[in-house]
């Protein structure tokens, strides 16, 4: 059990998809103008990641290695189609804002890279927890960026007015997302430098 917990912790902080691996940056900037959007898309990613990890893990012996990438893409597209039908029923208003990105989960690099690196080699249970960890890491990243941008950009959190004025309007503009991610990445690097004593080389951004 502890190894499963470690898989979740691993996805949450040490290999956080957004800040450490720098994978799937597009939604991280695009939908995070508020916490609500980030939460919605994050949950969709958790769903797709967990279910496609499990599917690939179960059927890994049937997938020929030479056609594995198209096979993974089809598996992901299947689960994305499912969540794309579920979400508008649960919350139509928020879905309208993140609609394009829910569909684009198909091409999120984080999901296919976890299938390739983990689920295609490991049995079902670890794959499930790895998917859960990576999904929650992604969710955590989206919510953190969303909270910072919403709070400083509009003075609100979850749509509730907290400050009553807009401290930094730039945060909700397109440029703000880039700045916030750049600075959070730098903070993660700085923390690692303080703990381990060496400066990390940041991820490849794919």
């Amino acid at each position, binding site marked *: 059990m502890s190894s499963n917990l470690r898989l979740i912790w691993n996805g949450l902080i040490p290999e956080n998809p957004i800040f450490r691996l720098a*994978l799937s940056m*597009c939604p991280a*900037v695009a939908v995070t103008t508020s916490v609500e959007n980030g939460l919605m898309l994050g949950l969709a990613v958790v769903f797709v990641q967990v279910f496609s990890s499990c599917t690939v893990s179960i059927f890994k012996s049937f997938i020929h290695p030479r056609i594995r990438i198209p096979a993974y893409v089809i598996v992901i597209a*299947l689960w994305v189609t499912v969540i794309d039908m579920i979400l508008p029923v649960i919350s139509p208003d928020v879905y309208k804002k993140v609609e394009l990105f829910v569909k684009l989960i198909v091409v999120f690099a984080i999901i296919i890279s976890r299938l390739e690196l983990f689920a295609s080699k490991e049995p079902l249970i670890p794959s499930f927890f790895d998917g859960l960890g990576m999904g929650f890491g992604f969710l955590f990243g989206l919510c953190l960026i969303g909270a910072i941008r919403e709070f400083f950009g509009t003075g609100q959190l979850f749509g509730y007015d907290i400050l009553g004025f807009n401290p930094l309007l730039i945060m909700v503009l*397109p440029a703000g997302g*880039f700045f916030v991610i750049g600075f959070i990445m*730098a903070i993660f690097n700085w923390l690692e430098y303080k703990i381990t004593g060496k400066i990390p080389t940041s991820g490849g951004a*794919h």
Partner: protein
Amino acid sequence: MNVKQFSNVALLIVLPIFLFVMIFPALVHAATGSGSFKKDTEIQISFGAPVDETWAKDPANYRVFQKTDPDIEIPVTSVTLSPRKTSAVLTFGEALNLSSEYEVQAKNVTSDGKMLGNVEFLVKKSEGQILFTIFLGAMLINNFVFTKYLGLCIFFGVSQKKETAIGMGITFTIVMVLSAVMCWALLTFVLQPLHLGFLQIIVFIGTVAIFVQAVDTILRKVNPYLFKKLGVFLVLIVTNCIILAVPLINADSGNGPFESLTLGLGAGLGFALALFLMSCVREKLELCRVPSVFRGLPIAFVVAGLFALSFLGFSGFSIF
């Protein structure tokens, strides 16, 4: 063949396609209505003969509505007549939607004291103007990288060197244009007749993946040198969000073949432009003294943020 020669060749291929797309619809739809938009709150209409000033200056004589909603009338606030009295400019209180069609009905047109009956004018942009607006919008105003944040993975991955950035930009533009048209054809001729619209995600990503694989295989046989230059990028293109986003946007807004092609071209060139600009800055950045925790990606994000700020300057920019 070095990158510069290659980019010239690619330009020679892309430019005629672009010119053809711009001109062809103009040939087909040469005769549009006799009205035109002046600004986004003004419509100009021209009469066959000089009209009476008292009649023309009365806003109540005009009925203006969108072609799709004939019930919703748009009130005319004022009318100015040209000195020769053959054309009038109608001014509206609210901004018009320049991409849709409007109809202007002039009641009881009077000329030299005689009633000439009702006249209708159809006001819309010509096809070429619409296409140019889409093109400019996708490339600059709503640049896919800086205002829609798509394709960031590739954008940060291959923008370290100018040479790879140019190669990627050109390869991407070509694949984007072709796959946009292919996805449009599949949607119109296969998915919609069979009522399989909910399968569009699977079909589009499958199409793009198969297409990229096909280009990869063909290029390997036909032109090994070009393959060596572009092979790496070809595989990466499948993971680029823009390649899937453009067909989805096309499907959502019901674009026709030419609109789809133009959106694909605009998105591709916009991506190439963003990649080129970013690679220029990042080559210089290598020589700068950046704080150690900011080295690599963090500083690249801050630079992208500055670019996004400057691209905000294009918002509200329109030629027609």
